[in-house]
């Protein structure tokens, strides 16, 4: 009898351990060093919560974190709204003119280098003489993340059987009600997943934010980046550990959302 591929052998366990170490060892080290009592990043001085304490008293860092979270929340919400509408247009409006052009333009931010997007947005905001700050970053992040939402929602929509909406209409729903009562509940997991994707992308972005933000409204990644240039403080490790924790929570929620969608007998939204 052939041995199943997934059996536990010494070789399998070793390669699994090496693979996981390759991916997660840097993060584990970062988390451990965030509890380091020493002022020097590379020297272990015993366990301490000192740098977390320092972070929560660092006004500028806290402002940047708050800025980042609110930009991420607002831009993710806007991107989800617009991206879902675009996905519906693409998946359901098969016959409209210029559909190919629309879909190409919608997806261009996926392949466009961020430096170019950032620079062109900067030029636009300067030309409009818009005051750069919270709203310019939010708008920039919305344009960046919207296409990701569209990809996620559209793939879910096109996997959905058209005859479900027809059945709803057959049973007395007008087209709008059919969408709200049948399609929307079925694509909700994809919409939630899209929002979370947009949120983490926005939280993570340095390039576009650095082009479009103004003085006094730095996001967390920009702030960290400028601090690190002056030498890594252990406080950065603490901040990064908190961000990792936040993202871990989001990933767990997102996988629950796609589990929920599996339980409904449909294919899961790709993430």
């Amino acid at each position, binding site marked *: 009898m052939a041995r199943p591929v997934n059996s536990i052998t010494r070789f399998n366990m070793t390669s699994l351990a090496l693979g996981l170490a390759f991916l997660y060892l840097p993060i584990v080290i970062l988390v451990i060093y965030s509890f380091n009592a020493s002022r020097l990043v590379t020297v272990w001085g015993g366990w301490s919560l000192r740098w977390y304490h320092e972070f929560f008293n660092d006004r500028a860092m806290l402002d940047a974190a708050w800025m980042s979270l609110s930009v991420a929340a607002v831009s993710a919400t806007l991107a989800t709204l617009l991206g879902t509408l675009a996905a519906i247009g693409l998946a359901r409006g098969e016959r409209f003119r210029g559909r190919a052009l629309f879909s190409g333009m919608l997806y261009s931010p996926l392949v466009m280098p961020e430096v170019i997007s950032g620079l062109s947005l900067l030029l636009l905001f300067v030309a409009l003489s818009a005051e750069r700050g919270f709203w310019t970053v939010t708008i920039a992040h919305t344009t960046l993340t919207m296409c990701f939402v569209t990809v996620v929602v559209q793939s879910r929509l096109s996997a959905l059987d058209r005859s*479900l909406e*027809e059945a*709803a*209409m*057959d*049973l007395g729903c*007008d087209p709008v009600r059919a969408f709200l009562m049948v399609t929307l509940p*079925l694509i909700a997991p994809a919409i939630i997943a899209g929002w979370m994707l947009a949120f983490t992308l926005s939280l993570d972005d340095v390039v576009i934010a650095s082009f479009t933000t103004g003085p006094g409204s730095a996001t967390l990644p920009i702030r960290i980046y400028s601090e690190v240039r002056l030498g890594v403080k252990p406080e950065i490790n603490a901040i990064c550990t908190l961000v990792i924790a936040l993202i871990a929570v989001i990933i767990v929620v997102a996988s629950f959302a796609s589990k929920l969608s599996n339980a409904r*007998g449909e294919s899961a939204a790709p993430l």
Partner: protein
Amino acid sequence: MPLLRIEGVAKSFGNFRAVDKVSLDIRAGEFFALLGPSGCGKTTLLRMLAGFETPDEGRILLGGNDIAQVLPHERPVNMMFQNYALFPHLSVRDNIAFGLRRAGMPRAEIATRVAEMVALVKLEGMEKRKPDQLSGGQRQRVALARSLARRPQVLLLDEPLAALDKKLRESTQGELMELQRRLGMTFIIVTHDQEEAMTMAGRIGVMDAGRLVQVATPRNLYEAPATRWIAGFVGDVNMFDGQVIASGQGRLTVSTSEAGSLTVSEMWPPVTKNVVSVAIRPEKVRLSRRAPALDEGGAQTINRLDGVVADVNYLGGVTTYKVRLESGATLRASMANTARLDVDAYLAGQRVVAWFTADDCLVLEQ
């Protein structure tokens, strides 16, 4: 006035004419089948009755009112979808109640009606399950209950049994017929399976390339097909092309290259052209070891052909034979295995006489 009148309905998709000037009357309480190969336009016609497609021309009169332009949710017609289209996020009960809630029926009445529907399709105890917790046959029942719940004037069924296996399909056919009789509702079913259409429907409309080519009872469709194409599409048939060389006393003599000269009874309406096809169903061809005695066909004229058994297929209830005629053409015959012991069986290579009466032949224009 029939319940449903389809008048000169046509529908094109781009250059493709899916439905070409179809006219058809359907009476209240009828079980009607639209039969045809895939792409013949039967599903498009059904979707126009449901309101998912709008006809380019013609009228659809339901109880005297033209509904051709009425939106699906405003028609007193419901459809059972081929893949059932059950709402995966709703339970069996909520699926069945969906249309009733949209109609604004009071809660208590909805509960009664749902219970009635659940009992009708024998799904008691399954009310709280989601569609993915049901078997294929159970899903089919939920879809049926959901489309019947609003008590539509006409129920449209799009290949309702296509997804079921053979045994289940046969028992479900019987249940559907029983249900239709009990409710006295009008059913229009679309199918590509001629046996299914013949089993269930009172009348069958055969479609080909967007046109309705014949509307008839199952028996007439099989025994008196209107065209050569229908004779070949519905059931199995031997077809010999030839020319009428003599006629008189209700008989035609057709000279064929493959089966020699055949005597056939004239049909109504009589053929108008000289070039015809003679069609004979395999079960009407009889085989014997010697030439039949003259009185075996009664007063009828008998056509006899000599040949050699080329192939024997034993199918349980019947055995089908391929007989190689002297011309080299093949004649198919099927015989019921009425005795358990094979006293009547023929073997491959055996010389036989194949014979059939003039009345059993069909004369069709080419």
